[in-house]
């Protein structure tokens, strides 16, 4: 009957809708803004120490022939706390980690280290997001692979997950060669 026929149309429309949903689910949107600085030399900067615990960070520290992992983070950022075990793992693997604390307070940062550990050799305080914008970072956390000449080789947007560790380590190795 006609009732059956139009219900089949509804069913077909619903199936199409499901297909669309599945398609969109299977290829997640990548709306993150990649830095235009990848492949370029990091601009000159000199940030004061964020806490008494670590010395500050300047562009000279990143051009000493050693590749580095530069982590852009903040104590007020929840995913930054969540990636702490992965950063500790990177440190155990011998990756030289330096940090930039964005719009942060020394007390908060000290408490953050207390709770989640401090894998960084140097941490610069970026009170007004100056360096963050210079290197094209649009949020926290982000981690950059910088080679021994201060050239940004790779940008990782968002929290470091356990499955990202091998990739970061191999890119770091690549930056060495």
């Amino acid at each position: 009957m006609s009732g059956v026929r139009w219900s089949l149309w509804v069913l077909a429309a619903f199936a199409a809708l499901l297909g669309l949903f599945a398609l969109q689910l299977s290829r997640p949107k990548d709306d993150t803004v990649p830095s235009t600085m990848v492949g370029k030399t990091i601009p000159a900067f000199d940030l004061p120490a964020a806490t008494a615990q670590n010395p500050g960070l300047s562009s000279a520290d990143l051009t000493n022939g050693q590749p580095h992992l530069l982590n852009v983070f903040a104590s007020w950022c929840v995913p930054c706390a969540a990636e702490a075990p992965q950063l500790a793992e990177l440190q155990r693997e011998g990756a030289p980690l330096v940090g930039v604390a964005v719009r942060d307070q020394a007390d908060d940062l000290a408490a953050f280290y207390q709770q989640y550990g401090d894998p960084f050799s140097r941490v610069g305080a970026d009170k007004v997001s100056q360096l963050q914008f210079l290197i094209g970072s649009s949020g926290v956390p982000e981690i950059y692979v910088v080679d021994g000449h201060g050239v940004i080789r790779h940008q990782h947007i968002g929290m470091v997950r356990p499955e990202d560790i091998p990739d970061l380590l191999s890119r770091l190795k690549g930056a060495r060669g």
Partner: protein
Amino acid sequence: MTAGFKPKHQRLVLVVLALVAILAAGALAAWALKNQASYFYIPSQIVANPPDPDRGVRLGGMVKAGSLKTAADGITMHFVVDDGKAQVPVTFAGIAPDLFKEGSGVVAEGHMMKDGTFVADNLLAKHDENYVPRELQDMSKQQARQTVAETR
């Protein structure tokens, strides 16, 4: 008028009416979507292929450092949106969103004028700088709106 139709025909009248209304709704929606949806441009696209001035579009990019100027009236702003390849001058009158500043990303909703300036009716800047993994993300009404504000 009712007396002229048998009940069966009356039913047919309603069914036909419903079908016509649904089909009209579909056709109308398709036509209006084609004409009223606001497309997303980046500066190099909008310079290469500028849309009609009467068409609402969105322009996304970075606010070029050193380009932000406030006019004498205190509320009109002029700045340049940049995507590394092309630059578009933008005019906006109003209260800018919280995290709007030079060097930050912005999405401007508005119209592309014939003279090559973009007149924005609304600015959307990033609200929350936290990259929250999606499984932690709360999609309450307000946050979802923020999310919209962040991307588009």
